[in-house]
């Protein structure tokens, strides 16, 4: 059960990261007023969130594989 919660949390973080990336793209997509510095900051944060989400998913998957082997 704990693995499932972790995996869901991991995928949630990945979704948040994708949302942040979309926000960053929105910042630069208006040619009349592109906010490049803001977009850079958002993209940097999105990358960090994405990495942590993927890490959580991987850990939970590995833990599930190990627990299956034990049982």
């Amino acid at each position, binding site marked *: 059960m704990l693995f499932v919660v972790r995996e869901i949390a991991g995928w949630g973080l990945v979704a948040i990261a994708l949302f942040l990336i979309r926000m960053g793209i929105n910042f630069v997509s208006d040619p009349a007023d*592109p*906010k*490049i510095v803001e977009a850079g900051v958002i993209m940097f944060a999105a990358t960090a969130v994405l990495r942590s989400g993927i890490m959580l998913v991987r850990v939970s998957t*590995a833990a599930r594989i190990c627990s299956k082997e034990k049982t």
Partner: protein
Amino acid sequence: MNRIPNHDSTHRSNDAVCWGSFYALTIVVSAMLFFPYVYSGSDFNPGPGLILLAITFLTIKRWTGAFLMVLCQTMLLLLEPQASHQQVFKHGLVWLALPVFLIMAVSRFRTLQERNPQTLRGVFAPVASFATNVAVPTSLVQNFGSAVVQLLRTGLLITGCSISAWIIMKMVPIGDADIGFSTLREFRLKASGYRLLILGLSIFVVYVLTWIAVTEISWRKLSPSQASIFLRSVFIKYYHRDLRMITLKRLKIRRKRARSIQPVSPDEFPAAVKGKT
């Protein structure tokens, strides 16, 4: 028999302390000579002064500090107004350059001596051979060559980093009240550059989505032993940082010890074998 190496090592450590103190003292004296020339004729600004002081102290420990110091000086000469140039040239550029080169030389010698006392001898041997007309052993010439190559490599690396940092900083508008952070004109972006930015971001999004799909599918095919290794490494990294630190420290010491064992050069090898037999 055992007493001789002990005495030798104590002697060597005393030597290192003496040389270290001498180098530190030379750097401090050179810095004292150098600072009045940097600030002659201008109001004292503590910010750049502190940065230069920090870089000077960095040269005591790291050779890269000397490069940074030269780059800072070049940048100051380029950025300062013309009046300050005249001031520097009036006082004599030599008196400004001399302490900087002295600090550079001292820092380099200290680094070389710390790494290996043989290397320092190797650096001077080819120069001395011109004067004395004595043939230099091949290993010493190789040492000299490698020192020059390393010097050039460090110089190129730092210069490359400085040029790229300069180019990036040039693109960001700073110091003008009318300029904000929002329009294409301020970032000197052409229409093609803007298109490239948008295309790059779109490709990045596609890449991220594909990467997540591919790696997650392959990740679920891990064998139990692979998964357990991964879990152990992750838990040690996040929950037992002390263990990780101890292991890394041991590895570092082991590497250092392996590096300190001097390999026997091909010229000395037959003599070393004869001596043993």
